[in-house]
């Protein structure tokens, strides 16, 4: 296992492998996306309460899941980079931050667009949306810290420490926000409980979730390649890559 990890983390190998994987990943992503959208927008029956506006969950929920998932990946890869000094882990960690932030933003925007028809206000202090907002702030902190430090290696170590501290705090923040929202909102069913999931509604949701993960892999590989080229400017393996430019 370590041998593979070590081989995989050698820049030229990673660059060529990712180059070959990207087309396949894109194709897979498009197929899943098409299937998920068709399922979510067409075949899935309208929700008896929310009507067709519930179809926003096919974007909102996967985005929310991804925002949390990417933060975890960022923290774990940051930790690996910090402890074993594997350069590629640092690159994965820092390249994930902007993608995670964009998914969090997407979750917030679609959340408020979903809330408007239901409760008449653009912003609902619902537990899930509030946790999502704080997660967005955590992402802003990570990105702000990375941009503030010039040297790449130090910046990635700083981001790894912050992400690890963040990942420990996320459950605590989530619990306290849940408790806080039950305090002020009364014991009604939390507004964003997913509507009673009918099998035809659930399949597209899971398909969209997988599609979003594939999308994350694509965006991550693209950003990792950029970060790699930027850090390996001096090295010789870039020669034959530059020929093709």
């Amino acid at each position, binding site marked *: 296992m370590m041998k593979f990890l070590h081989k995989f983390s050698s820049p030229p190998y990673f660059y060529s492998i990712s180059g070959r994987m990207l087309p396949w990943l894109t194709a897979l992503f498009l197929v899943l996306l098409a299937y998920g*959208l068709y399922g979510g927008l067409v075949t899935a029956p309208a929700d008896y309460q929310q009507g067709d*506006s519930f*179809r926003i969950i096919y974007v909102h929920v996967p985005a929310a899941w991804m925002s949390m998932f990417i933060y975890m990946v960022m923290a774990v890869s940051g930790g690996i980079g910090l402890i074993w000094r594997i350069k590629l882990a640092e690159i994965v960690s820092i390249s994930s931050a902007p993608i995670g932030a964009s998914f969090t933003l*997407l979750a917030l925007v679609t959340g408020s667009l979903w809330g408007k*028809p239901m409760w008449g206000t653009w912003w609902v202090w619902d537990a899930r949306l509030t946790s999502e907002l704080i997660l967005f702030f955590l992402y802003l902190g990570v990105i702000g810290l990375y941009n503030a430090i010039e040297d790449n290696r130090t910046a990635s170590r700083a981001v790894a420490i912050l992400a690890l501290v963040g990942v420990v705090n996320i459950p605590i923040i989530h619990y306290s926000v849940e408790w806080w929202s039950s305090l002020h909102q009364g014991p009604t069913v939390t507004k964003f409980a997913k509507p009673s999931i009918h099998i035809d509604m659930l399949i597209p949701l899971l398909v969209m979730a997988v599609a979003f993960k594939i*999308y994350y892999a694509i965006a991550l590989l693209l950003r990792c390649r950029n970060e790699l080229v930027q850090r390996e400017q001096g090295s010789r393996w870039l020669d034959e890559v*530059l020929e093709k*430019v």
Partner: protein
Amino acid sequence: MSEFLHMGGYALYVWSSYGIAFLIMLFGIFKPLILHKQQLRELKLKRQREKR
């Protein structure tokens, strides 16, 4: 078809959600792609300058 677009009266919210999602995800793919092309071109120029 128009009924589908109507989305039971929630057309604005549903389609703007999907539209924004589409834009954000598109941006997330094309920005690094364009940056990559630029990066390689700049690096090539820089190396040619150094060789001279």
